[in-house]
């Protein structure tokens, strides 16, 4: 399968197979005007299978979302058809507006305008807790 190469844009590579769509949704890539390609279950020497997202525009990516969904992804920045920068995502310390607290006793349930903020409490187990009520975020 061929996807046109990018002149100026971003390739999110080494996405764990199956997580490409989630990243697409959380980054709101459907709102972009430019071409966006999701490759599912592409071949990878290292991972066996992987997902890849190609974005044909130089946009600002929310690295926290990438780090939360899949901290092992690689972000390749392409300019004039050449790879000019490789970035790695890391597990973010705080996530705002990405996860939503489901504890009915949490203040966020009655005060709708409050930002839903989660902080990383256990990096090894990748546990995030609501900063208000400390409820653990559901694993996807």
């Amino acid at each position, binding site marked *: 399968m061929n996807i046109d190469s990018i002149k100026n844009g971003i390739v999110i590579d080494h996405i764990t197979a199956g997580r490409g769509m989630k990243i697409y949704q959380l980054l709101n890539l459907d709102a972009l005007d430019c071409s966006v390609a999701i490759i599912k279950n592409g071949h990878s020497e290292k991972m066996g299978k992987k997902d890849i997202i190609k974005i044909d525009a130089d946009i600002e990516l929310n690295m926290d979302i990438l780090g939360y969904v899949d901290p092992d992804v690689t972000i390749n920045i392409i300019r004039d058809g050449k790879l000019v920068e490789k970035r790695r995502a890391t597990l973010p310390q705080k996530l705002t507006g990405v996860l939503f607290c489901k*504890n009915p*006793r*949490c*203040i*966020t*349930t*009655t*005060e709708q*305008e*409050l930002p839903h903020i989660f902080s990383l*409490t*256990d990096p090894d187990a990748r546990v995030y807790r*609501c*900063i*208000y*009520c*400390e409820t*653990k975020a559901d694993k996807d």
Partner: protein
Amino acid sequence: MRSLIDIKELTPAEIDELIATAYDIIANPAKYAEVCHGKKLATLFFEPSTRTRLSFEAAMYELGGNVLSVSSAGSSSASKGESVADTAKVVSCYADIIAMRHPKEGAPLVASMNASIPVINAGDGGHNHPTQTLADLLTIHREKGRLSDLTVGFCGDLKFGRTVHSLITALARYTGIKIVLISPDELKLPSYIKKDVMQKQGIEYVQTEDLMAVLPELDILYMTRVQKERFFNEEDYLRLKDSYILTPDKLKVAKPDLAILHPLPRVNEIAVSIDEDPRACYFKQVLNGKYMRMALIMKLLEVHA
């Protein structure tokens, strides 16, 4: 400017400092009678709690300060739909420090993020109640002379008891602490506290349903109420309810210097006849709560005797 939302925000050194101030207040109350002169504490209690509010108010009056009080959500702007953030901003214009109790978990944190004055969490739903923990710690210190090298039993509802979770979190930072968890299976301590607090700090702990089997080894017994509505079936409740009622008979096997604590209110889990026993410390705990709140108010307002 600092607030106190969760007991974990205080280092053991800061807790020691608050305990030292509390001892000095007990020894020399006159020295502290005017330290908060001209300062105002706003008690914003959005759910009923007579005692905690009275304790905060008594603490402020004994420091020579004044109190502005909102005693229920119904009599405040919250009933008109005002947000916690706005309430905190408004009250910041009138008072110097806020003590807030709220039924929603995290409300005092929201207040502290928006207020320009210190906020003390006076209980947010079933979540945190750090000044109760300060009262518990001072009580243990006054009874035992230390916060380390103690075997501490927690009995009753360990699942929903916020005071239990906070005290375990605070004690886990001291050396030589052994925790004994005594509860029915339905009301066991949540696993994240075992994992995130006790195992992380290397705290030795045992779990049992049998109070009598472990009572002889305890230095501290922290009793809590076992509520019928927490059980899934009545049969289990009936089978277990008496196991967690402390009576003079049961106390015969306990150490002569055991300290019995209870965050109160008590229903029937400690027989009234135990009140006369020198090991009963739960009313002393109430008084200690006032001293620790005095020490905390001073610390957050940065005033000194």
